[in-house]
């Protein structure tokens, strides 16, 4: 067993770290305060190959592998979680089109996602009445000649307002068993009837847009059906398995960032004539959380490795996401505790990190859903 990174992995990690620290981190607080993504950053990331890390060169991707992808997500997550989630969803969308799309779909959409011609990709699964249970969604797609007519609405769709293409799930066969009821469609931004609603006011990750989508007689060419009719749920779940590696990796980054800040602070802050780092209570918080984040990162990298080997990784991805996101939440909580009052003040970064990390246990499958997946694997083994 070899825990060391290869030379390529190290170089990619260093490149992304340099970029994220120099270019993204200085903007993180501003993006948060102004509730605004910087699209120039996304364009630069596409130029660097960060928007299609596991996509074959033939479609404009960098094809560097899932382990480097995880390392990169952790670095971007450390610097700016809002940018990280945008990158994660865009990569996921590119990959899902690669996995299930026709040659034309790949040529048209994947290349644009990778090149930055599309600022981002979006993933339109959740609805107000269907979150953890996407199979119960209401949005409908009815075939009319060369088109599908889509009607319904989606909620909490990351990047929808500037995504060039959104994968939209809709019910194509109400009568079919749940696993075959829904299908996935590739919907371009300017399709008539495709309306992006308001961006939600969020607790954290405020730099990323989270929109409502309204589909009103939205006519999508039949050629934009992704996979076959009825494949929708399978496609969504497969995409989310991979997505969980991205979110887990990002959470690890946020957790480390908060802990490193708290560690440095604890060494400098003096109370009772000694640095607070000399108090065992503080030491234990740091020891516990670093242990948790490092074990989470190992799980995340294992899941990434398995995916890279093209073997099954669903169970491992769920475990990784569960531990990474829950652990990162604890890490940020403790970081604030270590900073005391300063931790609660917006001028210190841990205040934002705490808000940013919160959602990671919710999207791309809540922690409860991860446990469900893990338990199913364990009990069905």
């Amino acid at each position, binding site marked *: 067993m070899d825990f060391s990174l290869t*030379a*390529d992995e*190290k*170089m*990619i990690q260093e*490149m992304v770290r*340099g*970029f994220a620290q120099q270019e993204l981190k200085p903007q993180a607080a501003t993006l948060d305060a102004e509730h605004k993504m910087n699209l120039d950053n996304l364009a630069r990331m596409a*130029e*660097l*190959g*960060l928007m299609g*890390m596991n996509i074959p*060169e033939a479609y404009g991707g*960098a*094809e*560097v592998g899932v382990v*480097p992808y995880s390392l990169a997500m952790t670095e971007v997550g450390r610097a700016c979680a809002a940018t990280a989630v945008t990158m994660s969803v865009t990569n996921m969308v590119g990959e899902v089109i690669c996995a299930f799309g026709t040659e034309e779909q790949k040529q048209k959409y994947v290349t644009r996602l990778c090149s930055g011609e599309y600022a981002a990709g979006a993933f339109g699964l959740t609805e107000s009445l269907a979150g953890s249970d996407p199979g119960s969604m209401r949005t409908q797609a009815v075939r009319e000649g060369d088109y599908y007519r889509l009607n319904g609405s989606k909620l909490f769709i990351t990047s929808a307002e500037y995504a060039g293409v959104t994968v939209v799930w809709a019910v194509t066969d109400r009568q079919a068993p749940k696993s075959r009821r829904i299908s996935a469609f590739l919907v371009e931004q300017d399709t008539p009837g495709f309306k992006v609603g308001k961006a939600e006011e969020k607790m954290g990750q405020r730099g990323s847009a989270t929109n409502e989508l309204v589909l009103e007689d939205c006519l999508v060419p039949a050629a934009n059906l992704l996979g076959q009719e009825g494949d929708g749920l399978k496609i969504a779940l497969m995409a989310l398995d991979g997505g969980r590696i991205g979110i887990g990796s990002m959470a690890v980054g946020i957790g480390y960032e908060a802990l490193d800040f708290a560690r440095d602070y604890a060494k400098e802050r003096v109370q009772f004539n000694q640095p607070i780092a000399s108090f065992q209570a503080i030491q234990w918080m740091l020891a516990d959380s670093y242990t948790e984040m490092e074990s989470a990162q190992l799980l995340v990298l294992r899941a990434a490795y398995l995916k890279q080997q093209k073997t099954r990784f669903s169970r491992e991805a769920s475990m990784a996401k569960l531990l990474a996101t829950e652990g990162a939440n604890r890490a940020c909580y403790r970081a604030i505790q270590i900073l005391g009052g300063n931790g609660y003040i917006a001028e210190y970064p841990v205040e934002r990190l705490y808000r940013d990390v919160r959602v990671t246990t919710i999207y791309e499958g809540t922690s409860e859903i991860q446990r469900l997946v893990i338990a199913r694997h364990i009990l069905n083994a």
Partner: protein
Amino acid sequence: MKIVTCIKQTFDTEAKITIENGKVSDQGVNLIVNPYDEFAVEESIRLKEKNGGEVVVVSVGNDKTQEALRYCLAMGADRAVLIQDPALENGDNHSAAVALAKLLADMEYDLIFCGKEAVDDGAAQVPSRLAEKLDLPQANVITSFELGDGQATVTREIDGGTETLEVQLPAVFSAQKGLNEVRYPSLPGIMKAKRKELKVVSLADLGLSAEDVAPKAELVQAELPPPRKAGRVLKGEVEEVVAELVKLLQEEAKVI
């Protein structure tokens, strides 16, 4: 247009320095391409992108230095040559310049770029030594570069200002911050770099002996600077106190 760019692998500028047996220890230290050399590599690649040609990055180093060269290849250099030899391990600036000059003597080049100094020993010797050994003109610490016909016009930093120089080519140029904005290697660049040639040559391959590169300056010992002394509050008449302060800054702290 053929460009040779000399780079050195150095400690990360944030690295904590520890001393072991009178030497700076490299244990656990992150290694990077010397930051000033990155400006040199960037300028070389830009010139190639504009005028066509080839950028060859060269370095004197060890196994680890391959990573630094790969980084330059990922940025866009075309191939790399590493001079590696046990006899060079304790070399000085003279050793490096002699080895590089011998390597370059058999190469074709129109321009040679270096960084203005390495952030480790801060000596700023290799560019000038190399220029001398190759009998080429030099322009050090440049912040702008414009290619002309058989010559280049550069701006270089001098004490308290700048100087614009016209330099006959080929020549050696050393890069200062401000020359350009260094790119990050892209992921496709990193993948392509794996397939680019990285040749390792020994002193024997260059026709040099250990004696030819024996260092002229030898490290006796390295030590950490003395720890911070307890602060002192100066008291008295303003004029006296100020005079004392200036004296201390000059002679004790040696900062002005």
